[in-house]
């Protein structure tokens, strides 16, 4: 059973590194999943699902509960940075690249990597800071940083709303890109830092630029951030986070063992695809397509930012937050317990 878990983790990793999601063969599926799929494909069940979707669309009320909670988190964390300086609160001093939280070193994974490659020194404070941060995100869930902390994510969400409005009016269209670009960018900037001797990505990273603009008032960099947002509005949806930013990769890796994740329950799913329409990284939700789930209950993979927009979007509650060890019994949890 534990080999199943390892296979799943490896598949999730491959997915994050750009491999396209694949439809499982019946042999890849658990007995329960096969039975469920056979049941779902029966004409009666198809009819029931169709009726359920129609009635649900008639009374559709879009919930924004998790988005509001998440935005509050983004505001709180970044507010703490600002207040720590401006009203001398001294809880979270620094910026999102590196900080002291209650006196403890915190450091961003990618910023530290860039710096050490450019400087060609192992900076012990950064090793401590990165380790602390990795441990935290290994618990609360890897790319949670992206959607619950990063200030650019917030602006990008607003840009996305405008983008979708314009798409609706057929004024612009979304140009999809290859998400493997992000992996290429990660390595290109790592090599560039080493060769040039400067942490080049840091100069243009909107995460650092925004974090510093908020606390220290360095606003010229906002022009660059504005250009990125503009590109996201008129050209390609969530362009920076989806295709360029290497910051999430480090956190994604940190989150591979994270007990906090979003869980998909295939029994409740009507396969409408509403979750995939709102998702920043829709490839992680490919398992919600009919016939793609290998198990009845599956945790969403490491590239997931736990933004919970899919939970808000899902009308049937097939997607929920799940904490390993705290949740009530489920097929996957048993698997997890045996595996770890």
């Amino acid at each position, binding site marked *: 059973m534990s080999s199943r878990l390892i296979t799943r983790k490896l598949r999730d990793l491959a997915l994050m590194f750009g491999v396209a999601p694949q439809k499982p063969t019946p042999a890849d599926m658990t007995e329960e999943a096969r039975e469920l799929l056979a049941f779902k494909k029966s004409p009666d069940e198809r009819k029931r699902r169709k009726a359920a979707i129609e009635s649900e669309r008639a009374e559709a009320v879009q919930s924004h509960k998790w988005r509001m909670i998440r935005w509050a988190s983004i505001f709180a964390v970044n507010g703490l940075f600002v207040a*720590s*300086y401006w009203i001398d609160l001294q809880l979270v*001093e*620094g*910026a999102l*690249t*590196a*900080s*002291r939280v209650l006196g403890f*070193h915190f*450091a961003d994974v990618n*910023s*530290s990597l860039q*710096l050490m490659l*450019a*400087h*060609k*020194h192992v*900076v012990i*404070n*950064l090793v401590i*800071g990165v380790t602390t941060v990795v441990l935290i995100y290994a618990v609360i869930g890897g790319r949670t940083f992206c959607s619950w902390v990063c200030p650019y994510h917030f602006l990008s969400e607003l840009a996305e709303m405008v983008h979708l409005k314009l798409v609706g009016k057929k004024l612009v269209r979304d*140009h*999809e*890109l*290859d998400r*493997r*670009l992000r992996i*290429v*960018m990660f390595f*290109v*900037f790592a090599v*560039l830092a080493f060769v*040039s*001797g*400067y*942490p*080049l*990505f*840091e*100069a*243009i990273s909107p995460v*650092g*630029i925004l974090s*510093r603009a908020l*606390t*220290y008032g*360095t*606003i*010229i*960099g906002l*022009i*660059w951030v504005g250009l990125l947002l503009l590109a996201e509005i008129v*050209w*390609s949806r969530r*362009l920076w986070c989806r*295709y*360029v930013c290497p910051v999430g990769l480090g956190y994604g890796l940190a989150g591979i063992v994270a007990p906090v994740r979003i869980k998909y329950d295939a029994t409740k799913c009507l396969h409408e695809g509403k979750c995939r329409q709102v998702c920043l990284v829709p490839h992680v939700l490919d398992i919600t397509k009919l016939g793609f789930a290998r198990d009845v209950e599956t945790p969403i993979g490491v590239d997931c930012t736990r933004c919970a927009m899919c939970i808000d979007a899902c009308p049937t509650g097939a997607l929920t937050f799940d904490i390993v060890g705290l949740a009530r019994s489920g097929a996957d949890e048993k698997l997890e317990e045996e595996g770890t």
Partner: protein
Amino acid sequence: MKDEEAAAPVAPARSSSRVDEARRRLLRSAALGGVVLCASLLTLLDHRAVEAAPRLRPPGALDEEDFLAACIKCGQCVQVCPVDAIRLSDLDQGIGNGVPYIAARAQACDFSCDATQCVLACPTGALSHLIDAKEQSRMGVARLAAPDACLARKGEGFKGLARGGAFKGHLRYSDIDRWKPQPVASHPYDLATCDLCVRHCPIKDAIELVPVSSDPQDRRRTPVVKDACVGCGVCEMMCPAEPAAIRVDVRVKGRDPGGPKA
């Protein structure tokens, strides 16, 4: 991207349109990657442009190239400075975006903190942790850049506020409060011979006033900068001439206390 769309066949076969879309997607991705890469390389180019006028870095800063590599741009040095001398550069500084500097004329580092707090705050050692006393820093060297503007050289005194009533800078006036820097604008002077640069220098034996002639009646004096000068910029901030008669020449090399590669 519009050209590509226009170039696409009007009614292609299903499979070939999919191939086209895949190719276009790859091209677009390469284009975006190229743009982002160019943007980052532009910051290097920009850096070459601003190199001509280097900025004063906080005490303990490694040599400029190492400093730019080692700074993680978090601003923790900014937060601990008691006189708010340290500011962060912006994107106009290219690769120096987010790196700390000191605009000495507006607010010099007067070492009010005594123990180089910025160095202690730096998580990366971009401000070298080998420094633990103000005398060890090598930020720059003061120079009498405009001798003709110097009041002491003209044998003149100085009466009033050093930098006028609107000046926002602070300085440690130990006789008033050793721990709380006071606004320079709250402190009027009445000096027979202007000696503001020497009077407020926080480093021992870094600068002195030397008589211009051997005539005891001659009140003219000239400030002479000595080897102990660390380039903190207090003299530049306090000089009542406008623009300052004495200014700090920024050191970009040889400021690393541990030698070229600490």
